[in-house]
């Protein structure tokens, strides 16, 4: 079985994987980071979104071996350990942007990528369009959009810790 080495949430990790092992399986099963979820088998739902070298990617459609030497950030890597939450995380809580919570890690990771590409002043139309790769079955999206707009603004107010580089 080939070995793979990468950095996940700032820590160097190594594991034995099959060629067909998906990144999401490596994260969940090898590293026990279960915050990244599997919701579909067609790459549509977005519950698996992580950041690879600073860019949002669907970990269900990425092979673990493709991430050899890469820097991966998952939902667990956003807040400082024992520290404050990331403003985008706080925004989801403040704006009731979640119900069952299953799509939420993917939504938050995707939201950070929207901010990276479109800035901190996001209008509703932009957010809705850019969330095309994330599905929620509980909320009807309304409060997710509010949360992302609020989180993006809060990130601009300084002290914002962007997804780890």
């Amino acid at each position, binding site marked *: 079985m080939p070995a793979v080495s990468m950095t996940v949430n700032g820590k160097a990790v190594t594991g034995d994987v099959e060629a067909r092992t998906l990144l999401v*399986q490596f994260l969940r099963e090898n590293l026990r980071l*279960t915050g990244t979820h*599997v919701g579909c088998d067609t790459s549509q*739902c977005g519950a698996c979104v992580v950041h690879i070298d600073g860019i949002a990617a669907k970990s269900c459609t990425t092979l673990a071996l493709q991430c050899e030497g890469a820097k991966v950030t998952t939902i*667990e890597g956003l807040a400082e350990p024992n520290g404050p939450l990331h403003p985008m*995380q706080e925004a989801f809580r403040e704006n009731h942007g979640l119900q069952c*919570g*299953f799509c939420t890690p993917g939504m938050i990771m995707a939201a950070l990528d929207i901010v990276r590409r479109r800035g901190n002043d996001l209008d509703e139309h932009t957010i809705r369009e850019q969330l095309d790769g994330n599905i929620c079955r509980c909320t009807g999206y309304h409060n997710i959009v509010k949360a992302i707009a609020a989180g993006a603004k809060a990130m601009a107010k300084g002290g914002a810790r962007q997804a780890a580089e």
Partner: protein
Amino acid sequence: MSATGIGAAVRRKEDLRFITGKGKYTDDVVRPGETRAVFVRSPHAHAKINSIDVSAARKMPGVVDVLTGKDLATDKIGNLICGWMIHSKDGTPMKMAPHPALAADKVCHVGDAVAVVIAETQAQARDAAEKVKVDYQVMPAVVDPGKAKSGPQVHDVAPKNTIYEWSLGDAKAVDAAFVLAKHVTKLDIVNNRLVPNAIEPRVALAEYDAGTDQLTLWNTTQNPHVSRLVIAAFVGMAPEHKLRVIAPDVGGGFGSKIFIYPEEVVCLWAARKVGRPVKWTADRSESFVTDAHGRDHVTHAELALDASGKMLAMRVKTIANLGAYMSTFSSSVPTYLYATLLSGQYDIPQIYCEVDAVYTNTVPVDAYRGAGRPEATFVVERLVEVAARQMDIDPADLRKRNFIKRQ
């Protein structure tokens, strides 16, 4: 307005773990020595099972065991049930066909499980499942509820695929009211089948403690107490005090995670058989053919009104497609949860509703997000909209004229 009194905004307590990725959904639970289960499912809507050859699958790397419907029957595991009795107009009870957790004689819908592979890893279980050889004899199938009564018979206990022919209301009084009507609106509508698709797929993780003869099930269930009752008392897996059902964080259900499914029954039975925890996690394609679907009604509805648009009576005839097997609460959804709601918020003196429930070779149908009430709302509000246009009355006015008035 105080911080904690009436009117104060209260933050949810559970959000912290969800926004930090520290939720504990069933697939996140890992038990020591855990094995993984993958089901072998029918690609046919209706077929006899001539034979199942598991010999090649058993030899695959990492395989702990491969079990079939025959093994389940030998171990005398009981069938799944529909728990809500409905009687037909003639007084006969609903025709509930046997529903074993693994099909042994024939399969009745695409996705019907016939075997389960237990292996060390998910990948090994999937590889081995592909090596299970099932000899099917494909039979004609019926999927359209409108054609069910004249289609191939799905179950011996239900001639014309009819589960029950139920009614509510006074047919004679309704007929008399229709005679007096100045206007009758007639409508044929379909409330199409849908797939619930909670973003978290279903998961069952079962563990057996031989030292205490205790079974534990972690399950994506909306109602662990109901699950425990049904699996203990009706499926007969264990006495209730020897079965613990745990619902950890659940990623949406909308009804689809209410029911007791074959997968949790099989995982419990397999865990006790192989002596190791057994975990099954659905993939999305599997969810489409195993999670109970919603709706699937074909309805003819009529509304009788007087010259001023006052509703006099309604009569409704619905064919409800319950699918290949009766799911846990399926019988109640198109009857007591549907017909009793046909009045909407209108003062309609007489309503008569007939519901025929049928079997077809489709995924079982049960309660979904509203469970019968959205179906009823759709019928009455469509009747109102069409009646308004036919009578050239503003739809809002027509509604106001018929609202239930304060006494």
